[in-house]
């Protein structure tokens, strides 16, 4: 967080409504996202209880496990879920776009669009990860066979939950994360984890203030928790009785009684899921009201690349994601996460003046009026005269840059701006910074209009950029040093077949 966001929280308290902390949408929203609201049985590692899932607000599909401790029913749930989720994902794999090659790079194809699964909160994403873990090593024949779609679902869920850790990736997102990225509420981040309370602050119903709506949202009877954990009172007073009734009916062999018990359980669980289902769509609608940021499409392209790659892995019979990353894979992944994080933070600031303002407040960027421009200034110190226009910017922002620092303006990311001199703010006068510009101006003797700022422009300069950073060098897998456990044992055989141990792993 930053002081700017914290001030927005204070303002939200004052106004009684959430305050914007972004002026554009920093996430990609699919035209047809799939919403997934899972519920799990309390106390178990990953025992699915029910889910509401689907890609249309008026057509949620309800999945229910009548005996959550029954292994067969768990795989039944996974198979039903796979029948909804896998076709949805595979529906995106057929349509491809061709990317032209450049230089040494061959032309290639990738999915023209990608699936997107939205979940209520991060705990939901963790549940998807665990569900992926417990299903991706299964097999469709032999002992403990499961439907062939189950391990496919497991691998996709694992892939999506892993991508969810990448800053800027939008294949699987938690609604609470999406919303808090764009609005600051007048409550704490802990309370923001409650989707109903969060939306209460952002978009309270008519006649209610944000805090009133948030307080009402904490009543688990009116607003059941957004899962995967259920309301303990619901468990104790409703669910336990219905599950017991179902077991009794099943034992009695009375089909009608069994059906009745099932319907009662389905209704009870639907009542727990439906409010969150509606909240999830409302969250998406609210975000759709914001115009997308400039780099959102580029990040979505990276998501499409990732989906294309993973689909290829599945098609070519590659092994599922390992239980634990090997040392080299883990180090590479961490380095990639760090680079993506830095690039994404810079992109968000470049796309959104309100995010840039956070950096202006800390002195990592400044903005102000251009008061002087020398568009035709030449640097004649070298053998050939070089075009090096200078601009003077007046700013009230705290300026912490030193002479010689290299800056970037979001308006012209290909142009370098070097600090020539800084006159700090004093006696009620703003600071003045003189910058020398290089690049992005063509090859002429004067800079064409539009390639450099003009007097009177409002211009911003940042000490960071989202420019390409070469990945650090890591050894190949086979070269893993003994200090890190030596080379990992490769999966055998190729193409991958689950071992007996994997396929028969308990899920109780």
């Amino acid at each position, binding site marked *: 967080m930053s*002081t700017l966001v914290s001030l927005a929280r204070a303002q939200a308290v004052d106004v009684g409504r959430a305050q914007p902390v972004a002026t554009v949408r920093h996430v990609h929203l699919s035209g047809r996202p799939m919403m997934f609201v899972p519920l799990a049985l*309390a106390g178990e590692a990953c025992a699915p209880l029910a889910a509401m899932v689907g890609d249309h607000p008026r057509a949620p599909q309800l999945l229910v496990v009548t005996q959550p401790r029954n292994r067969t029913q768990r795989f039944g749930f996974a198979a039903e879920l796979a029948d909804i989720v896998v076709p949805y994902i595979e529906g995106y794999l057929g349509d491809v776009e061709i990317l032209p090659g450049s230089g040494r790079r061959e032309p290639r194809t990738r999915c023209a669009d990608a699936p997107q699964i939205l979940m209520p909160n991060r705990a939901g994403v963790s549940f998807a990860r665990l569900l992926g873990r*417990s299903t991706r090593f299964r097999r469709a024949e032999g002992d403990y066979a499961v439907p062939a779609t189950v391990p496919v679902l497991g691998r996709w869920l694992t892939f999506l939950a892993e991508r969810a850790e990448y800053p800027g990736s939008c294949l699987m997102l938690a609604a609470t994360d999406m919303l808090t990225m764009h609005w600051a509420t007048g409550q704490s981040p*802990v309370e923001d984890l409650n989707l109903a309370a969060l939306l209460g602050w952002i978009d309270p119903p008519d006649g209610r203030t944000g805090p009133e709506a948030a307080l009402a949202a904490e009543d688990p009877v009116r607003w059941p928790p957004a899962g995967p954990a259920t309301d*303990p009172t619901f468990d104790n007073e409703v669910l336990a009785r219905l599950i017991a009734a179902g077991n009794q009916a099943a034992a009695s062999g009375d089909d009608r009684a069994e059906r009745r018990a099932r319907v009662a359980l389905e209704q009870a669980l639907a009542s727990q899921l439906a409010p969150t289902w509606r909240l999830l769509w409302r969250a998406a609608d609210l975000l759709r009201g914001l115009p997308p940021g400039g780099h959102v499409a580029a990040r979505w392209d990276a998501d499409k690349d990732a989906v294309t790659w993973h689909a290829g892995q599945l098609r070519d019979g590659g092994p599922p994601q390992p239980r634990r990353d090997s040392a080299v894979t883990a180090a590479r992944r961490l380095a990639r996460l760090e680079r993506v994080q830095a690039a994404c933070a810079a992109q968000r600031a470049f796309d959104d003046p309100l995010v840039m303002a956070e950096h202006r407040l800390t002195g990592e960027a400044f903005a102000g009026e251009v008061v002087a421009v020398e568009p035709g200034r030449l640097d004649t110190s070298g053998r050939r005269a070089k075009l090096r226009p200078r601009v003077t910017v007046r700013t009230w922002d705290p300026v912490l840059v030193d002479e010689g620092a290299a800056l970037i303006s979001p308006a012209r990311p290909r142009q370098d701006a070097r600090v020539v001199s800084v006159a700090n703010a004093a006696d009620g006068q703003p600071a003045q910074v003189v910058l020398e510009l290089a690049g992005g101006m063509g090859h002429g003797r004067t800079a064409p209009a539009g390639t450099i700022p003009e007097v009177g422009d409002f211009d911003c300069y940042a000490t960071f950029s989202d420019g390409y950073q070469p990945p650090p060098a890591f050894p190949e897998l086979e070269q893993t040093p003994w200090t890190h456990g030596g080379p990992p044992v490769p999966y055998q055989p190729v193409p991958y077949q689950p071992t007996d141990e994997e396929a028969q792993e*308990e899920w*109780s």
Partner: protein
Amino acid sequence: MDSTGIRLDRIRGPVTPRNHSARTIAALSGNPGCARRAVLDAAGVDKQGLAAHVGFPAMAGQSQFAITRGNAFEAQVKANGCAELLTLLREHLSLPIREASYDNLDEVGGNTSREVRHAWTRRLLARAAQSGDDAGTLFDHPLLCLRVGGRPAYLEPDLIAFQLSGRFHVTEIKSFSVIDGQADGDKVAAAVIQSAVYVLAMRDLLAEMGIGPESVADQVVLVCPENFSNRPSAALLDVRKQMTVLRRQLSRLRRIDSLVDVLPPGLTFDLELDRAGVPRRLPAAVAGAVRSVDARYAPECLANCEMCFFCRDEAAGTTSALGRATRDDLGGIEHVATVLHLARGAGQPADDQAEVAQLLRTAARLRAECLGEAV
């Protein structure tokens, strides 16, 4: 009983005091600055009942599914004289236990009173510590005692302490899963600090008999289900850091008398229960009494304390209610109104607020500029 004890009794009223548990002691270390919680816990007040009476009932407790699963797992691990546990300790942790006897301290000859059980626990543990032989012994449900705020708190851990090469190891059985070697960080942290409470209590108990702290290992054994199965797995966890935190916290609480001394005389949280257990005292009077003891509300209280909703309501309009990070970002200023006042540039900030006032004014200008609002 000393004067503080008498004061605390009056504060609680004529009802049986609530026991501290390892969980409540662990929670104390989460918000050490809260005098309200310290006093309520020291006096053994029923916080759940108190919160409900003043109109801010705490959230529902645990799901019965979670409780059932926890009990079933514990029973499974301990079945047949802890057969599964012993295998685990031998195989996973390579502990050289040849054979072990098993002592259930749940009751002593049919007597389940705390004092009797505690005395029996003391005797057994002392004998084991002094015998010095290598015979491993598992103690099921020993009853430990730790002085919290000058008052004895009986701890009924579901733990087993076993002796190995002259040392006791505290063992904690939890039913959350360890999946591919990883478990929920919050749950592990909670289990570790609870185990630290037990280690502390055991060391205190043995110290009274002149047995040094080295007789209790500062590594505890955490037993959890492995992956998605019910099979137990074990891990050794170092609790030295948590012990330091707890010890500091308990020594602060030992000075509970200084907290009690500044409270209004005659203060009581007595709900004046009638014979049917229905409170008769006016909620407003009780709430007034609660308010006279300072609280230090933080959003983390929502997960740890029965009084949280009362305190949150009371803390409305403060920056701490928005979380520690927000409060720090806003320069530690206590009230939201002051923050906004300074951000508007209204009035002259106090000397120690000059710097943060400057920051807030800039922040407010930037927000207004970006959102196209007038400052």
